[in-house]
Structure formats: structure tokens, C-alpha cells
């Protein structure tokens, strides 16, 4: 009986986060964002509103952006997740991160992880987006510091730099 009750309240999940395989036990009500932060210690993904409005918790699941506060960790069983920690390679910042730094596209940094992954996905789908397309793409990510202008500039600069490379 005790065993049965336990089966109903926790689940085993296996998934890859930033290329690393994890096998964890979670409560079904565990949100993906809390799983990433509290169970895996990946605190780069931020929690803002917790109801899908601010975009701070945006991560990629199987290559597609999702709100990590609107997905349960159990639903990521078998998935490949990319968080902001997965953008840098071998200690070297991703070009988008470099451009955010260069163009002052962040101040407090709270929205930055979500902005980066949203912009990363945009550039995967559109190598040379117009400023309007960039604004459209980040419309679901709230920033209270920058006025967005420098974020748009940074994303554009990244696209232009990769076009030249």
C-alpha cells in the first residue's frame, strides 16, 4: 500500500539538459523551471511571473522555445533541454551573449536568459531578421531596464556578424 502511494506521488524521469544526461525523481507538480533550478542547480533560467507572461523562464525543449513555468518536469521525460548555461562553449560566450555585452543589451539581467534563448531560436529560423521581426520575436519577453532598443541592436549585430563570417 505504501509502495503504491509512493508510485502515485513521484515519477522517475530521464532527460538531457545541455547535452548532459540526468535520471531524477520528481513530483508530478514540479514545474520544469523549478526542476532545472532547484534539482539540477541550473539557476541561469529565471522565474519571473510564473504564469507564462514574462518570458524570463524561456528554454528550448527539443529545439523549440517553451515557457519552463508552463511545463511540468515529468513532461520533459525523454526530451533534450537547452538552457542559457548551454549557450557558451568551452568557456567562450556565444556570439549572442557577446553582442548583448557589447551593445549593453542588459542592465539587471533578469530577462536576459529568456531573451537570449528567444533570440537564439529566431536566428536559427531567420538568419537575417529585420528589426521588426526581432521586435515581434521578443514581444513575449518583458524587460524593465533597457527599453528593448539595445536588445534589438544586439540581435541584429549578431546576425550581421554571422553573415560576414
Amino acid at each position, binding site marked *: 500500500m505504501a509502495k503504491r502511494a509512493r508510485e502515485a506521488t513521484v515519477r522517475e524521469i530521464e532527460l538531457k539538459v545541455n547535452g548532459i544526461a540526468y535520471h531524477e525523481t520528481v513530483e508530478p507538480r514540479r514545474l520544469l523551471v*523549478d526542476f532545472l533550478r532547484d534539482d539540477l542547480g541550473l539557476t541561469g533560467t529565471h522565474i519571473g511571473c510564473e504564469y507564462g507572461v514574462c518570458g524570463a523562464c524561456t528554454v528550448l525543449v527539443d529545439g*523549440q522555445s517553451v515557457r519552463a513555468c*508552463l511545463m*511540468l518536469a515529468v513532461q520533459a521525460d525523454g526530451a533534450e533541454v537547452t538552457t542559457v548555461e548551454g549557450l557558451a562553449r568551452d568557456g567562450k560566450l556565444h556570439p549572442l551573449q557577446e553582442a548583448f555585452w557589447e551593445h549593453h543589451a542588459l542592465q539587471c539581467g533578469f530577462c536576459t536568459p529568456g531573451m537570449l534563448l528567444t533570440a537564439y531560436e529566431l536566428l536559427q529560423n531567420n538568419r537575417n531578421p529585420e528589426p521588426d521581426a526581432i521586435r*515581434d520575436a521578443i514581444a513575449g519577453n518583458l524587460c524593465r531596464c533597457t527599453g528593448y532598443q539595445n536588445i534589438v541592436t544586439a540581435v541584429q549585430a549578431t546576425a550581421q556578424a554571422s553573415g560576414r563570417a
Partner: protein
Amino acid sequence: MKPPAFRYVDPRSVADAVGQLQEHGGGAKILAGGQSLLPLMNLRLVRPPVVIDINRISALAYIRETAGVLALGALSRLHAVAGSDAVTRRAPLLAEAAAHVGHLAIRHRGTIGGNLAHADPASEIPAALLALEGEVVARGPRGERTIAAADLFRGPLSSALDPTELLTEVRVPITPSGCGSVFLEVSRRAGDFALAGVAVLLQRDGGQCARVRIGVCGVGNTPLRMREAERILERSGVTEDALRAAARAVEQAVAPSDDTQASADYRRHVAGVLTVRAVAQAWQRAGREGR
């Protein structure tokens, strides 16, 4: 906040999901894309004792054409609907409306079945389904039934689905040639809910407006069909006078309320203006189609 504890089941078949619904006597909630249910749970506005996650029922994710009908499995993601070649060609109004739902990250998870079952009067898909005169298929303990779009929406977040029924499929008639369709909305930012939105499907016969269907969202307790405006345009054709009269009819038929986003008067005005624009655009598109 975090969702309260619940019992979690993830059935692999529709029959199993319906069995689970029946077992829990309607106290369970179906979790599809979760883009509306999980916010409500995080805010603890709903506390389902049991959550039935249908995301592992792969048989519910399909888009196919059959005998004049485009059928979409309930688990079709809105991103897939918006980008689907079949939907874009066979029922372009639905693809256009789907592209307006939320932001990309929301459309990646959000499903067409979940959207309709949630019955948010501000959402775009219900208005498009009304204009397309589509229907949904519901599976319950006593079998399967279809519910016409006109009968589906009962009130804010309230549908004709029984608590023990699972919405399994969405069906829309394939849009005939000679038709033009348009979805327009005004929202505060791209991706926000519409202050007002209008879905128009129009069939043109030379200079005549043979048939027009208008669905609106964001301006009432449910999505609404604008039947009086439809009658005016079918009787008088798409002339400047008829468009003005249709806009007036829409302003009278809608029942918006004030909120922090916009006043009721503004929403009413926008619904009229969007109707004129959407019908005029649909008329032009239908003209191109017909030739």
C-alpha cells in the same frame, strides 16, 4: 506560485484517457498544451485532484484531409497548425488565426483542442471555428458525438463538453474555391490577447457576395457570430454603404466589457472597424481566388 499537488496520469490511448475521466467522475482535468491550465494551477485558481496528461497519446496529433473536410487531431500544436501546408491551402483562415495565438513559445506547446476546450472568449481559434462553421468531436463514456461550433461555447471558459468527455478532433469544411478569408485583430503587443478580433470567410460569385461568415473574439462572454452583418453583406454586396451598415450591426451585436486593457466602447468601435477591413480584404482575396 506553484501548482498544488495532484495525482498525475499519462494515458497512451484515447480509450484509456476517457476511462480515466470516467473513473474520476469529472473531477479530473485534461492537460494538453498546458498554456492555459498551468497558469490557472500556478495561480491556484483551479486545483484539480487528478491531471490527465494527454501529451503521450501520439494518435491525437495529426492533420489530414478527408472528403471535403480538414480534420485536426486535438493535440495538433498551434505552431504546427499555423505552419501546416494542408491548413494553409484548405482552410487558410484557421492557419491565419492560429498564427495570432500568443507568442511562438506558447504556440509550440498550445494545442488546437486545448484552446477550444478552454473556450476563452478572447482567443482567436474559437472565432475562426465559428466563421468556418466547423465542429469538434468529443469522446465520452457513452461514445462519440460531434458538437457544432455554434453550440460549443457557453460562456467565459465554459464549453458544451461534458466533464467526462475528451475533445479528440477538430473538423472544418475545406474552403471552396472562390472564397477569401481574413483574420484581423488589435492587441496591445504582438502575441497578446485581442482587444477585438474578427474572422471572415467570404464566398464571391462575380460581383455578388454569395456567402459571408463573420466570427468575432474579445468582445463578449463567448466568441460571437455576426449574423446581422452577414445578412446585410449577402443582401447588398460588398459596397461602401453595406460595409458601413455591417460595421454598425457588429457594434450593436457585440457585448464587450471594460477592463484594464481597453474600454468597452473602444472594443466595440474596433470590432466594427476590423469587420470593414477584414470583409474588404476577404473580398479582394476571393476575387483573386476566383480567376
